[in-house]
């Protein structure tokens, strides 16, 4: 067995923030288990990423290079890591919980007779891994049993990227053998969906609308509150999926990430995909009829009540305070 391995991902040619968070999680796990931490980077050309990662307190950084790893495919990445881990026999393999990891890590784990413990938010003695259940209403503690590597993916924002300790790591190269015929999917270049004319990312005040608004006829009420505050209007995914507001106003992992002074969430329960997008907010206010809604766990101020009563009262109170 050879300790803890963290699989690094890039974003626009640099190590992604969530990968540093996974490294920090690896170092936390190392402190609990006494194991050493290593990193693996996959691609066709990994020199630049490797140099970045090798400047952290890791035992080793391995470049897993092959021309067929140039663009991501589940088949290519699974094969490469399967071959690499067959030689390395890791105790733990940590991934950043990204869309890409969700696409292949469960497959890799299954190939080795394992199950991924996905989207964890904490690591405690045991080790026990915490992940959310019931859309964030409960948290569960998971344990790995039996032989073989334990696969874990780490939720965005659960560990601090700047907690990844600096140092100097040895670098080595691994060349997997992959045949073109083993790659069964053909991905295209990525493209943007809707025109992005609304920049929620730089808005200072944002009102967000969720399922609790119930009817598209109630959207103007939320807009009226946004106008009274001088705020932009955003929404959770279901609202945009239903076409009640355009997709460019979607906040969350598949939409925009926001960092306003104030985020006022109306009828938003607080699914993790939404919370990931709002965590840069300075103050969060939640209005929801369900006092158990997970949004209240991250809110600074909360009102439990019916939107149809609370929002008109808020519009009036905001207008009165501005006079």
């Amino acid at each position, binding site marked *: 067995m050879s300790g803890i391995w963290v699989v690094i991902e890039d974003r626009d040619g640099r190590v992604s923030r969530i990968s540093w968070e996974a490294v920090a999680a690896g170092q936390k796990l190392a402190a609990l288990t006494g194991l050493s931490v290593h990193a693996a980077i996959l691609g066709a050309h990994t020199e630049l990423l490797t140099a970045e990662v090798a400047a952290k307190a890791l035992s080793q950084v391995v470049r897993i290079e092959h021309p067929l790893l140039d663009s991501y495919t589940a088949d290519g990445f699974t094969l490469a890591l399967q071959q690499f881990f067959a030689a390395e026999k890791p105790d733990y393999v940590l991934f950043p919980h990204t869309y890409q990891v969700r696409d292949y890590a469960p497959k890799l784990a299954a190939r080795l007779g394992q199950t991924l*413990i996905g989207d964890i938010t904490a690591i405690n003695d045991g080790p*026990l891994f915490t992940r959310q259940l*019931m859309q964030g209403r409960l948290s569960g503690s998971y344990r790995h049993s039996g032989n073989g590597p334990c696969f874990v993916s780490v939720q965005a924002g659960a560990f601090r990227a700047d907690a990844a300790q600096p140092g100097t790591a040895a670098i080595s190269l691994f060349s997997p053998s992959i045949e073109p015929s083993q790659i069964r999917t053909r991905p295209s270049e990525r493209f943007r969906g809707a025109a992005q004319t609304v920049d929620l990312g730089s808005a200072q005040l944002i009102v967000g609308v969720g399922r609790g608004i119930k009817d598209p006829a109630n959207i103007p009420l939320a807009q009226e509150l946004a106008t009274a505050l001088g705020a932009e209007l955003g929404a959770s995914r279901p609202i945009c999926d239903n076409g009640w507001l355009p997709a460019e106003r979607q906040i969350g992992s598949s939409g925009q990430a926001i960092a306003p002074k104030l985020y006022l969430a109306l009828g938003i329960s607080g699914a993790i995909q939404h919370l990931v997008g709002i965590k840069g907010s300075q103050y969060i*206010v939640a209005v929801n009829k369900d006092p158990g809604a*997970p949004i209240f766990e991250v809110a600074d101020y909360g009102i439990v009540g019916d939107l149809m009563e609370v929002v008109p009262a*808020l519009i009036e109170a905001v207008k009165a305070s501005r006079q």
Partner: protein
Amino acid sequence: MKIIVAIKQVPERDAQIRIDAAGKWIDDSGLQYALNESDAHALEEALQLKEKHGGEVIVLSAGPERVGSTLREALAKGADRGIHIDCADLNKLDALGVARLLAVAIKPEAPDLILAGLQSDDLGQGQTGVILAELLSLPHSSLILHVDKTETGLTVKRELEEGWFQLIELPTPAVLTIQSGGNKLRYATLMGIKRAKTKEVRLLHATELAADSSPVVILEHVALPQKQKFTQMLTGTPKDAAIALVEKLKFEARVL
């Protein structure tokens, strides 16, 4: 095209969740259940593909007896037949164990396409479809919003992060996990509900499927999540709460 849609019955979105006495899972007494949201979109995608290209839509679900009502609901929306893997303690299995059961049921059907929702609203692991592909040695793609049939297989639209998308070409048979919101869900018609009563639902017993389902990953206990912040709750009439909130935002948080 012969399509199998793997669906899951989950507690209703607004259900009040209580932890059971052992602290191991939720107390299911009096809980209302519904079809998992992204699975409903997977079913819709399958029904639309059948309308365009012909074929058969089979819905497959594992769980206790109550799962039968969710299978009937899918049949009422237009699925042709159902397979129910009777499994009383589904929540004791891990993702690999559940996928192994489903794979054993799928294999003899030899479908052209297997669809699953992206993730369940209860456990939220988002792994079943991807593991199924591995167990059945099929290509897959996940987070799919739209499926087009081509001469040689499929072209699918995959969601990436932060508003990006990608097209993926893959041969059939294949497995896709479907993201919510890519299509508009239909309602069951009265005629559909009537017809569903006579459609076949085959019952398989988990214990007879000879799939190794002993868990590698164990849910030790569940708890209410720890609060990340102290939340000041503003109470009273809506008017009182609204005025108090605006005061706080203006003078305490200083953001207005």
